[in-house]
């Protein structure tokens, strides 16, 4: 299952959804908004998404992960809107009979999500300035 939400993510609930007595391993990844980046303090983070496309891409990521690895549960929840430092921006939980598959799938899911899912982060610094994060692109 995949979900985009404006509400705070509860990682423990995401983990619970992949629980199964057929699984031997559960891996949960939680991405959180860091307070400091290279010495600058983040006051808030804003996530924007192209919701229709982001949902489709997330569903495709889940489907591809299930093809590549023997997963029992696979949950991806991404938050958008405004986050406080320390809040979870994304939670990915997978369960599998064996741990290697669960680790590989979780890591592939977050790596690929960051590349292909149309979601954008804007840092709102404590000095009042703000900046879209666009990896590889020169600052504007």
């Amino acid at each position: 299952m995949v979900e985009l939400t404006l509400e705070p993510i509860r990682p423990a609930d995401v983990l619970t959804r992949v629980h199964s007595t057929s699984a031997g391993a559960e891996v949960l990844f939680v991405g959180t908004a860091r307070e400091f980046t290279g010495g600058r303090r983040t006051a808030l983070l804003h996530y924007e998404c192209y919701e229709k496309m982001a949902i489709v891409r997330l569903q495709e990521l889940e489907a591809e992960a299930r093809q590549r690895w023997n997963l029992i549960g696979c949950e991806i929840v991404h938050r958008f809107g405004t986050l406080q430092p320390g809040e979870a921006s994304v939670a990915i939980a997978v369960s599998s009979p064996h741990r290697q598959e669960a680790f590989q799938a979780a890591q592939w899911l977050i790596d690929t999500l960051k590349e292909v899912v149309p979601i954008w982060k804007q840092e709102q610094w404590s000095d009042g300035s703000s900046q879209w994060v666009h990896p590889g692109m020169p600052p504007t």
Partner: protein
Amino acid sequence: MIVRLLLFAVARDIVGCNSLEIELPGVPNIGAVRAELVRSHPRLAPLEKYLMFSVNARYAGDDQLVRADDEIACLPPASGG
């Protein structure tokens, strides 16, 4: 033909609106949409090569033809996660 283009993140901030209507001759492709967007908003020029486009929620290359009722979007590099 008039196509409607959704804008996100830094592209939206530079253009100043969430979506644009762009008029293009003939049967345009994504390359023509990209060129017209940058021509009408020159501040996007330094970013042009980093901008991706989608048609109906799928990534689309410059060769892809667009129809009047397609949902087209301009997507700067993603930074979710």
